[in-house]
């Protein structure tokens, strides 16, 4: 079994992962967001279909005009048509730029979020096997037994409650250690700095309680 990476290798690995994603996609990734969208795949598929339908601004305008005509009669649709009267300056805008800025506002495709979660599994598995750390086991390690609980039923209960808190908390806060911690803090977003400080501070407090008190 090999040692864990030194801090600088870990820092380089996490930074490279985040920077590569941002540079190649002009986006930010987050594991809790991926979970959220994959778990609500029905609703997300609906959103994707609607977005695809209205990807073209003109299609949206026409659909609005048609819907207005359906609702209020053909005559009332006329005011909506002014959306289409463009000044020559607006027409000069290259369509490619318009579509790429629109694509940037859309969330990453749902299938890419499934791929992210599966890839985390494969990456973790490769690391475990290549370092000789892979071992099928029914406990969470000696430290968990000493610090939290060594009784199987209590362990299951703690892991489940902890998982619910992680799932609920990350979505309420809008991100986790990858979305807020790496991508958000890296962009110096105030919301991410606040969230990271609070979840890390709480982690410290609770860990001290578990270690020293309970």
């Amino acid at each position: 079994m090999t040692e864990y990476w030194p801090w600088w290798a870990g820092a380089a690995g996490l930074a490279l992962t985040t920077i590569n994603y941002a540079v190649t996609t002009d986006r930010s990734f987050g594991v809790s967001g991926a979970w959220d969208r994959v778990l609500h795949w029905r609703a997300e598929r609906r959103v994707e279909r609607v977005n695809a339908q209205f990807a073209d601004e003109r299609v949206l305008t026409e659909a609005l005009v048609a819907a207005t005509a359906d609702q209020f009669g053909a005559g009332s649709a006329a005011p909506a048509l002014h959306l289409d009267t463009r000044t020559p300056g607006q027409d000069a805008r290259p369509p490619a730029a318009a579509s790429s800025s629109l694509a940037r506002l859309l969330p990453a495709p749902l299938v890419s979020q499934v791929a992210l979660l599966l890839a985390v599994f494969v990456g973790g598995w490769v690391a475990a096997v290549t370092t000789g750390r892979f071992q099928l086991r029914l406990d969470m390690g000696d430290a968990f037994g000493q610090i939290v609980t060594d009784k199987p039923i209590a362990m299951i209960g703690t892991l489940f409650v902890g998982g619910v808190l992680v799932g609920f908390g990350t979505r309420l806060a809008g991100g986790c250690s990858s979305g807020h911690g790496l991508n958000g803090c890296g962009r110096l977003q105030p919301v991410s700095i606040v969230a990271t400080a609070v979840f890390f501070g709480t982690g410290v407090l609770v860990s001290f309680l578990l270690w020293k008190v309970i």
Partner: protein
Amino acid sequence: MRTRGGIIVANIIAGLALGYTVANIGFGDYAELNRMFTFQDLRMLLAFAGAVAIIVVVFAVLRVRRTPGRIHAGVIPGAVLFGTGWAISGGCPAIPIVQVASGYLPALVTIAGIVVGIRLCRWANARYFHLDSGSCER
């Protein structure tokens, strides 16, 4: 890489790299995590903080755009719940996946908890909180 296929490939690369790195740093190991949170060992803390420092500098040089997101009423309570859950279960949303991949089968229970928590949050938000939680991932 900004097409649909490009984004899928980028997510596969990010997931592989994240899983591999997180496992090799030792985030999946509860002993290491508790030692990080209680400052007995600064290695993992420095790995995370060092990564953020590198990213801040590189993003500033490359002028990487900010993503949408503002401070709303759910940020602080959500982060408190998340920090508590992370400290007691040893899992942030990616870590239990890495733990299962390393052979820790009970981490499947953590994943089940995360699934319930995430579904509960979207349901509760739609019904009670009505927060535009402006997810940070875009």
